[in-house]
């Protein structure tokens, strides 16, 4: 399509065209009204002039009869101007005046009449006049009138003014429309171009935001946020598929190898049994990882309205702590609980509960000052969490304590799990939120590396964040979620601003 064609199809152009038409109609109406008013005014003036002259003539007639009237008319007819006079006898024969001929019958009706006429000198044809006819005694008729050339001239001026102003209006409207349309068009074209580039695969592109805060800017901002979210989701998807390739293939390979090995060796019944049991164990592990991945994916996909409800998060935390308390005790860890009462949260109780459980599980597993199997009770766990770095074997006073706290901080409810283990180096804190990330020292221990990713996904789903902090010594994981404001505020996931 040509640029002009595109222009004609823009909303801005169409709008300005419509505006132009409306203005033209308006201008026409205004000028028409003016013209009509002017006409009426001129007519009024003419009739009053005619009446005044007629009054003067009637005085002359009263003084000197028809003869004097004829003389006065002869005299006045000779004066320049646009006044018209005609005096005829009963047969219509002109006696005096400057009107040479009239259409048939005009003189028969007394009163005002607009009529064509011809002058004595015949200077111009097609003359029109407004005149008043009087019937005098003895069959004499008198016409006192006024030429309408002036009126016609005024009309012509008005028409010309109308036409000129219409041309100007059209020009201005078209220019304005063109300007607006081009301005909008250029920005939209730029947006379109960016969108094309993004569709072609360059997800780093963003729409230009001018900063004027107008509709187009707001649109661009919103679209950019949307793009940011899409980008993140796509990155997540890529990450998952990469991770799946690695972290699910490995156990699958193991599973297959064991089964194959069992088949190859003609074992006894007990041997087969052991191999099968191992197979089931491996597949259970896989199922758990798979479930965790699905749960993260669901949480990341955003609001899962069906599971959302308002609940007392302190109570939920208390329940989870109670669930883990015997395990902690068995492991020789003191589980300290610090919960503010009456904190309401709108969210998925199940997912938040699971997140707290994961964090506690992590803290109990990796939160002990020295790593080597302090926790025999946890040795049988199958799906575990991120490891905390234990490379630099920091030795802290053996305060084996894990604390779970729930408190309100401004508009957020912060659920924090803290331990006194080796902690996580600041450089690794963002990385461990990713899927399947397990730090050195944790690889040898059971776990899938999905616990903190679930925490991050759950936080995001509720419009909150996960922070990893130094507990000095140890690790503090803070899950900050927006508190339920008033009755129930929908937990719409907040979008991150585009990078």
């Amino acid at each position: 399509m040509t640029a002009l064609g595109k222009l004609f199809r823009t909303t801005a152009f169409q709008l300005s065209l419509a505006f132009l038409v409306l203005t033209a109609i308006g201008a026409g109406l205004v000028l028409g009204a003016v013209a009509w008013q002017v006409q009426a005014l001129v007519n009024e003036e003419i009739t009053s002039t005619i009446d005044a002259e007629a009054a003067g003539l009637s005085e002359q007639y009263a003084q000197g009869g028809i003869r004097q009237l004829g003389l006065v008319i002869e005299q006045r007819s000779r004066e320049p101007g646009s006044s018209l006079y005609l005096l005829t006898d009963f047969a219509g024969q002109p006696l005096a005046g400057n009107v040479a001929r009239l259409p048939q019958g005009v003189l028969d009706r007394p009163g005002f009449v607009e009529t064509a006429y011809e002058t004595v000198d015949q200077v111009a044809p097609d003359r029109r006049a407004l005149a008043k006819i009087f019937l005098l005694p003895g069959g004499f008729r008198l016409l006192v009138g006024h030429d309408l050339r002036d009126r016609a001239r005024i009309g012509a001026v008005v028409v010309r003014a109308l036409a000129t102003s219409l041309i100007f209006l059209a020009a201005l409207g078209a220019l304005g429309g063109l300007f607006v349309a081009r301005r909008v068009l250029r920005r939209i074209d730029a947006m379109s171009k960016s969108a094309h580039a993004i569709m072609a695969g360059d997800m780093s592109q963003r729409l230009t935001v001018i900063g004027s805060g107008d509709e187009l800017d707001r649109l661009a901002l919103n679209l950019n946020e949307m793009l940011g979210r899409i980008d993140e989701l796509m990155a997540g998807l890529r990450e998952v598929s990469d991770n799946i390739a690695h972290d699910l293939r490995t156990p699958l390979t193991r599973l297959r190898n064991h089964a194959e090995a069992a088949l190859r060796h003609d074992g006894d019944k007990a041997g087969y049994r052991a191999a099968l049991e191992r197979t089931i164990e491996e597949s259970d592990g896989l199922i758990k990882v798979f479930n965790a991945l699905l749960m993260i994916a669901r949480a990341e996909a955003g609001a899962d309205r069906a599971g959302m409800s308002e609940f007392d998060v302190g109570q939920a935390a208390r329940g989870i702590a109670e669930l883990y308390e015997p395990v902690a005790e068995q492991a020789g860890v003191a589980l300290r609980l610090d919960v503010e009462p009456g904190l309401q949260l709108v969210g998925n109780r199940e997912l938040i509960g699971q997140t707290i459980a994961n964090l506690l599980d992590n803290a109990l597993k990796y939160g002990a000052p020295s790593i080597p199997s302090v926790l025999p009770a946890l040795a049988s766990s199958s799906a575990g969490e991120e490891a905390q770095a234990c490379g630099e074997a920091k030795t802290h006073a053996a305060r084996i304590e894990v604390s779970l706290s729930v408190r309100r901080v401004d508009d957020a409810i912060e659920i924090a799990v803290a331990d006194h283990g080796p902690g996580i180096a600041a450089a690794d804190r963002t990385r461990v939120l990713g899927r399947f990330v397990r730090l050195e020292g944790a690889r040898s221990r059971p776990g899938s590396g999905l616990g903190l990713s679930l925490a991050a996904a759950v936080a995001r789903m509720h419009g909150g964040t996960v922070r990893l902090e130094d507990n000095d010594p140890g690790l503090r994981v803070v899950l900050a979620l927006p508190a339920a404001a008033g009755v129930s505020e929908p937990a719409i996931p907040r979008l991150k601003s585009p990078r």
Partner: protein
Amino acid sequence: MSPMRILIIEDDRDAAAYLTKALREVGHIADHAADGLAGYDLAREGAYDVAIVDRMLPKMDGLSLIGALRAQNVETPVLILSALGQVDDRVKGLRAGGDDYLAKPYAFSELLARVEVLARRRPNGAAEETVYRLGGLELDRLSHKVTRAGEEIILQPREFRLLEYLMQHAGKVVTRTMLLEHVWDYHFDPQTNVIDVHVSRLRAKIDRDFDAPLLHTIRGAGYMIRDSAR
């Protein structure tokens, strides 16, 4: 355990054959319907103790089938078996009239335990007892008092609920997930052996000072409380 009549409504032939065979092996009577309509007819006519219903079925999906049965006042307990295993799927399933929900893939021991527990919940069954008695162990659900051989045993509230659930299903296997669901009201996978530790604490309180243990660990399945003396 007396044999139960179990209806399996499942369109996957392999899965259904496996389930039918496994249930028959443990002594139950199992029938199979391969689509929703056939399942609906069978469930209406046959007096089944439990129906195991897949969610995605040809001709009539699982949830509609359950709804239709409930509308016809067929109160057969239903275990929904589904590949959709998220929390909200479960909520939808239970709202539709299912009595329990199990996600695929499942362990047979888990399914069996759930089916056997469900079968007890018959509408014409007697009113719930207020006192559970088993081998000298007594649990009063109203006064929250537990005694064994006349001696009072002090339990934490959660321990009480744990024992209550176990005794309610005395003689039946109860899995760890079932305990987490009914005692703690959570449906996720317990990451570690948390439930085991709770059970061993409870066991210490009710069994340690007595010769005959009542609370048994069923390997590869879960727990069962039963009077082994009898």
